[in-house]
């Protein structure tokens, strides 16, 4: 019989300290392109190589719409853009409800909902609970039922067949409630877009308050998004100019 308690005590605390000012452990985030100043022809070439329109020409350089960037890495390289290895990506949408305050700051219950996600988002959302990240230290908990949830974490482009279940789950949540769309698919449909089978993002069905860009957003970015929902993290810019 393996003595799991003993094994676990022997290993000590594996949770990593996190400060935004300090570099993240290597491999924590896929990173994303950094807006840069450059001449117009170079900027046009880069915008051309971006398959999702995340890179846009804005004189004098290139600006990045993070809501579209899927880390395809086609703009990365010697002649391409520099990438930034950060993870504070979540954005509070303009006109959305304000952060949950008061007691929610240290006790937030989250319902994860798969609305057609590829498995990448779910893989990363599962890991916010991994020892390295340890979600519970922030007072955030994953709950199984929408009736206990303060926050709905939606991943995937919202397929037609899941439109109704998503709306049902949202309506079953008690007030006050917030919706976080994680991943480019949940923001605007991503590579699937709007089609006969997909609605093209969570906002088509439920009111979205916060978006976490990324394909998929790494665990650290998801945690930042959840903290933002309770006013404990800063909101990143959705589009950054050069």
């Amino acid at each position, binding site marked *: 019989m393996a003595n799991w308690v003993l094994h676990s005590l022997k290993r000590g605390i594996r949770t990593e300290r996190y400060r935004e000012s300090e570099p993240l452990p290597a491999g924590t985030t896929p990173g994303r392109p950094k807006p840069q100043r450059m001449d117009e022809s170079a900027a046009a070439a880069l915008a051309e190589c971006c398959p999702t329109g995340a890179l846009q020409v804005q004189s004098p350089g290139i600006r990045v719409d993070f809501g579209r960037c899927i880390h395809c890495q086609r703009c990365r390289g010697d002649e391409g853009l520099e990438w930034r290895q950060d993870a504070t990506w979540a954005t509070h949408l303009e006109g959305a409800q304000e952060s949950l305050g008061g007691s929610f700051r240290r006790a937030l219950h989250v319902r994860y909902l798969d609305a057609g996600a590829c498995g990448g988002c779910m893989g990363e959302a599962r890991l916010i609970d991994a020892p390295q990240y340890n979600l519970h230290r922030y007072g955030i908990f994953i709950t199984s039922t929408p009736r206990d949830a303060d926050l709905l974490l939606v991943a995937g482009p919202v397929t037609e067949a899941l439109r109704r279940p998503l709306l049902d789950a949202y309506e079953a949540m008690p007030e006050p409630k917030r919706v976080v769309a994680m991943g480019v698919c949940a923001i605007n449909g991503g590579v699937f*877009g709007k089609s*006969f089978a997909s609605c093209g993002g969570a906002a088509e069905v439920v009111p979205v308050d916060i978006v976490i860009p990324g394909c998929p957003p790494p665990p650290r970015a998801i945690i930042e998004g959840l903290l933002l929902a309770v006013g404990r993290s800063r909101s990143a810019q959705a589009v950054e100019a050069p």
Partner: protein
Amino acid sequence: MNRFEMLQKEADTLPGVGVEHDAQGRLLFTAVPQAVPELAVWLNERAFEFATLVVEETAPGFHLVHYFFYARESGERITIEAHVGPGVGLPTISDRVHAADWHERETEDLFGVCFTGHPFLGDFVLHDEDWPENIWPMRHDFDPRASHPRGRGLDEDWRPRRLLEEQGALEFPVGPIWGDYGESGLCLLETPGEQIRLAHMRLFYKYRGIEKIAEGEPPDKALLLAERFSGNAAFAHALAFCQAIESIAGVKISERSRRLRVVCAELERMRYHMTVIADLAGSTGLAVGKAMGQELEEELLRLTETTMGHRYLFGLAVPGGLARDLPDAAITRLRTEIPSLMPRIQRFGRWLKVSSSFLDRIEEMGVLSTDDAKLYGVVGPVGRAAGREADLRRGLPYAAYDQFPPDIMVEQEGDGYARLRVFLREIEQSARLILAALGHLPSETVRTDCMAVDGNALGWVEAPAGAAFHWLKLDGDGCITRWRAGTPGFRNWHAFHRTVEGAAFQDFPIILASFGLSVAENDR
């Protein structure tokens, strides 16, 4: 005369069948629809596995149906082709080659090609409560970006069929959205109280129609879909997709990229299997085991990111090789970190194997018999745990697997414990392959020019969950006219219900976790 020539001679005598040898070295049987079932059985009896079914619309209402078969050990490939006209059915093969069952249901739902004699057609991909009849999304006249009538299906009050008639029997729905981190899909469990007697899977809630929306797109755009429809096996599917394109273009890729593809694919497999093991520990309530598994999973993800640029290997596979070479620092890192991770993974596996409370929940649980595994054509680790010695890396080697063949890990019991042992041993095997493939890397380009136009080909890989087949057809401009992703998820979900029938309710999540299935991979 070799076996293949003998087969060809023998097949020539079958009624209604024409035999050709095509350029890609496989046999092509052109059959009249009535001859297909006999021919499929004939192939099955000669140890040919059903690989996948591909349908293409040749003219409005006219379809060409391809049935792909392959020999598991020798790698010979045989295709049956049959033409069907409007309003004519094709006789079903699923009563005799049961692995084709879901393929036929999907074809009927998306193309409107009817399979006569099939007992359960309709309500498969397009759910009856959402979609009106007579909409065939995969036909060319269907515009995927236009708005379509919704929510006015045949039967708005769709209720699952119930078979169990015992007193007090009820149908317990799990889904379509799940608690915690389950993928969306509906599982209907029929029970008189404690024991699950029957289970019906109703999937395709996550249907995103990737094969349709890719039509008319250039391959580099469709590649984004191939990577992102099933993110936790992204590299495997992107690789199969790229191999199909390379095969159309007739391009041979460099030795370095062939080997690095093995490295990437095996690293993905290690991480995928680790996820399954962590979830299996979690499903039995072994919290420390789950945490340790997830810690290792996160370390594998970080190793993937630091060496290959993305945690899920997005943007790496391209037609003609790899998008980027691995820098020397990355290769050194893999050479040092894999050997240091392995003892920890092995120790974790040993602890799991001696935890009686954990073993009690998975031993003799969710048994998939060898007969059922064969009947349903179950692939991947789940099939291997049920005594099926099937692995495309050996049977139909691609990339550099001809030089680095894996040992096939086979167990006979087909229960949850057998699956756990297969997953654990395959991680060890993958680590061995990575180190071997990194051994003598020639220094050369990893990307060969690859321009494919006008043609069709099948690409295949042994994805982490099993055999995946991607069939592609390109037009004269190199854009996609038809893409079919035959995935291991689609194969294995088909058989899943067999293993929960007879189990107790509380075992359901454990059996599910031990299968390591992806809904996204099934639903596409």
